[in-house]
């Protein structure tokens, strides 16, 4: 009896300790960013492009990077969805579960999901060299699209699996074709679709390795797909490597902006996921 109580006590203690470690790390990270970044955060940071270059400039802002990030992540999310949605509909609705091709495809997406983003960057870069595209907004969008496709396919997989098989049978019994059924699925998973979009967007906004070679960097807001574009994570990286303390502080302010951005996206997707649970 006593042994069981001790066991319970030890494991409960371990669980509490782990939770505290995770919570504390999060608190420290956010705390550091806020303490170091808040003094440098001002309206100019959000609304102006860098003045005197990102490396030495002490005034202006990171609007170029904010816009660049939104363009790249947004473009990649849209392109990624256009590709991922048909893929997951085909794999889950048209093909049977035990189909070899479907299994192989799903395994491949799992592998792709785990590949570090620098590999996507390198691959997209070599693709760009082959096609003669320079580091540009277009290149960044291509690299991040490759990066988010596995995320989207996997998220959509999860969502589609949750649709009860009886609904599938009920719909098929009305004499529908597979495509008509896919449309019903589409309605059923609307909320999940948004979750996939937000997840992919969040990942795209925050990733640095995929855009490092492919999007380049610029102090200006890109006006065409062929121009290089700055991104927030890269702006943080460059500012942080500057020897000037003010510029380093601006890096933390940029990090704060990025964190708030991600926080909003994560909160939104959590809210939507909860709403989906409630509805089903």
């Amino acid at each position, binding site marked *: 009896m006593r042994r069981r109580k001790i066991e319970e006590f030890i494991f409960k203690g371990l669980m509490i300790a782990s939770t505290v470690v995770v919570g504390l790390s999060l608190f420290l990270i956010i705390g550091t960013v806020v303490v170091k970044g808040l003094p440098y955060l001002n309206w100019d940071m959000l609304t102006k492009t860098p003045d005197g270059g990102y490396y030495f400039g002490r005034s202006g802002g990171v609007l170029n990077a904010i816009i660049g990030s939104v363009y790249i992540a947004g473009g990649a999310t849209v392109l990624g969805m256009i590709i991922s949605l048909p893929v997951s509909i085909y794999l889950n609705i048209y093909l049977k*579960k035990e189909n070899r091709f479907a299994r192989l495809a799903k395994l491949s997406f799992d592998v792709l999901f785990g590949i570090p983003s620098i590999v996507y960057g390198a691959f997209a870069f070599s693709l760009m060299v082959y096609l003669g595209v320079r580091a540009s907004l277009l290149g960044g969008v291509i690299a991040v699209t490759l990066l988010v496709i596995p995320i989207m396919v996997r998220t959509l997989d999860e969502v589609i699996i949750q649709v009860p098989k009886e609904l599938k*049978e*009920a719909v*098929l*019994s009305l*004499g529908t*074709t597979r495509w008509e059924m896919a449309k019903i699925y589409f309605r059923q998973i609307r909320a999940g679709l948004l979750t996939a979009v937000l997840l992919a967007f969040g990942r795209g906004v925050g990733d640095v390795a995929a855009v490092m070679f492919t999007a380049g960097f610029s102090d200006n807001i890109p006006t065409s797909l062929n121009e290089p574009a700055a991104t927030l994570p890269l702006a943080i990286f460059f500012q942080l490597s500057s020897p000037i303390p003010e510029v380093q502080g601006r890096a933390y302010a940029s990090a704060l902006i990025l964190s708030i951005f991600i926080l909003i996206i994560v909160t939104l997707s959590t809210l939507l996921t909860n709403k989906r649970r409630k509805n089903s």
Partner: protein
Amino acid sequence: MTQTPHISVKDLNVQIGDNHLLKNININIPDKCITSIIGPSGCGKTTLLKSLNRLLDDIPDVQISGSVLVDGEDIYGPKTEVTHIRKKMGLLAQRPFPLPMSIYDNIAYGPRIHGIRGKTELNRLVEHYLKAVGLWEEVKHRLHGPASALSIGQQQRLCLARGLAVEPEIILGDESTSALDPISTKTIEDLLIKLKENYTIVLVTHILRQARRVSDYIIFVYMGQIIEFGPTEEVLLNPKEELTKDYVKGFIS
């Protein structure tokens, strides 16, 4: 059997993996009657029902041999269009699964995919089939509200109406009342009895009393084989086979 058969099953064998679920099924299901499939859990009742509108197609490793003739047409024939077969049969599942759309669209969905577009015609069909299942008065003021807001019993009637709206000839019920309260169950049973004037109905049920209340014929299935088939009273009150006797008396469950 003096009735003309509507569905003829000939030498049907269904295997999933190494599991021989249905063995040499031969049966003629009479037209415009309610036929109940009874038998213990896992005996193959639902498999038999689903083989009638090819819902087994999607199961991994399934092997089906033999034929199922509906109006003389083999539904497993190579040239048969599966959507055409399924349109002929409405399915009423264990639990209601309304489509993720409004009450109106749930009914209009079937007619729409089969080519009916006219608004007045759709309005007429929606009203007609909602009345046919006795749901019209309850929902006529909120036709465009979500179907998921209805009670379970109402949803099940909605699903029945949705199935009827594609104008099937056959209704398949897979323990269609097992999730419902007694009053909703009675409503569905009464509806089915009314509907058999125009439809051939096949039900799977594990409730003997229900089989007795609603059906004209009973098929007793055990371990993937049809043990006995005949008029309800005969099978339930005067079974010929020992196994049926045991089941009806409650020895096998």
